[in-house]
């Protein structure tokens, strides 16, 4: 430690829940990271979150909140409007996104063609966020692997901050779900999940996802979910 830093003091542990305005550290030895701010000699929490101490930097991991569109996210959205240049879709955030005609399909769309035959109002699509401006104008594309229109199935909504847990490490959780229930599942970064399969299996997937959401903080999540699925389906997993 540098000399003259004797006054520096860390006031929180790693992975502790803090509320806005809580003082995280005193002195100039630590640096404010995401979700925190410096007020003269102190580093203060700027939101509700979980502390993450990364060397000298103190960051906050959000625990709640709405989705904010980010570039390169794969999201599930709903078509809400059609205009001259393309489709407007709802992204499950504060901002709607624009799917322009040239990003919509590889097929040639004739001038004046009926756009509803490609994507109609109320239909769901899997899309990739290509650009987000400072004013939160969002552009999406349908060109890319795995991006398509969703037919049938059901959509459920989860907290966007729980999405990594539902996917699991290298997709382990979601592939286990798929294997156990034989459902097709797509998890959007915006917190919408599409499930398609046998109706009772769809319900089982939803039940399991709710369980993951509730218990996402407890250790040994994957094992617990595996046991739960084995019990529900009588299929041996792993």
């Amino acid at each position, binding site marked *: 430690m540098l000399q003259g830093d004797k006054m520096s003091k860390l006031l929180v542990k790693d*992975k*502790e*829940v803090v*509320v*806005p*305005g*809580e*003082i995280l550290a005193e002195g100039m030895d630590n640096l404010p990271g995401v*979700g925190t*701010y410096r*007020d003269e000699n102190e580093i*203060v929490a*700027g*939101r*509700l979150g*979980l502390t993450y101490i990364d060397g000298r930097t103190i960051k906050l991991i*959000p*625990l*709640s*909140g*709405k989705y*904010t569109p980010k570039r390169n996210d794969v999201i599930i959205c709903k078509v809400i409007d059609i205009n001259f240049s393309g489709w407007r879709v709802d992204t499950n955030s*504060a*901002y*709607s996104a624009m799917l322009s005609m040239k990003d919509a399909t590889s097929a040639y769309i004739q001038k004046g063609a009926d756009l509803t035959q490609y994507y109609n109002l109320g239909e769901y699509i899997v899309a990739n966020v290509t650009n987000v401006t*400072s*004013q*939160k104008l969002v552009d999406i594309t349908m060109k890319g692997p795995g991006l398509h229109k969703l037919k049938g199935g059901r959509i459920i909504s989860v907290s966007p901050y729980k999405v990594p847990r539902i996917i699991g490490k290298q997709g382990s959780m979601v592939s286990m779900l798929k294997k156990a229930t034989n459902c097709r599942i797509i998890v959007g970064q915006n917190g919408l999940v599409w499930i398609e399969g046998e109706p009772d299996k769809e319900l089982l997937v939803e039940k399991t996802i709710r369980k993951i959401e509730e218990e*996402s*903080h*407890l*250790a040994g999540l994957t094992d617990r979910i595996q046991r739960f699925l084995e019990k529900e389906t009588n299929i041996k997993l792993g």
Partner: protein
Amino acid sequence: MVYKKRLDNRKADETRLVEAKVGVIKRADGSAYFKFGNTWAYAAVYGPRNLYPRFLQDPSKGILRCNYNMMPFSSRGERVRPGGSRRAKEISMVTEKALLPVLDLNEYPNSVVDVFIELPETEAGSRTAGINAASMALADAGLLMKDLICSVSVGRVDDKLLVDLDYLEESYEDGPVADVPIAFLPKSGRIALLQMDGLVSKEQLAKLIEMGREACKKIYDVQKKALKDKYKVAGDIDG
């Protein structure tokens, strides 16, 4: 008659029983309730979300909309007529102004954060309970905030300076009464709301503000604990 002892035997600087809980409304993005004795405020936060009509949008930052509503059966007197009133509109406005100094909505241009404060039971001090609940609900909604907001009403009944007046004290008839709702930013100690209704001297007011500041420290602890209790288990997260 001189007001010597408080009607419900509280000490002069003692609030009514304070209780708070976070995450009480499932479908809201953030929610909380806050109780001062029999005054009970629920707050639900929705957003940031799309804002229409379009002329209300602000391209430089998101806006905050508060709505204070006393339920028809909430008051101890006559039934409260549902729908807005002049009083509700004013309280919605001061709540909004009390919460804005801590909120950072620069990340959400053209959008709105809606706060609905509903009061199923009221017995004086309802706007302060509403502000306390709203500040917790906003934090629960994951919004960027510099600090929480703590609020309490202080006042004077006859010659006594008191914290958290209840309905009977506010309507004391044998002497002058003043009611001073006040809100603080607990970290910096700055004032976010200060209203006054009644008669107090300059010296009394200065003293009342200090009493409010002390009471808010206890309220802050309750708010903090309620928020942490909801997410307590999240602290065991692994990797």
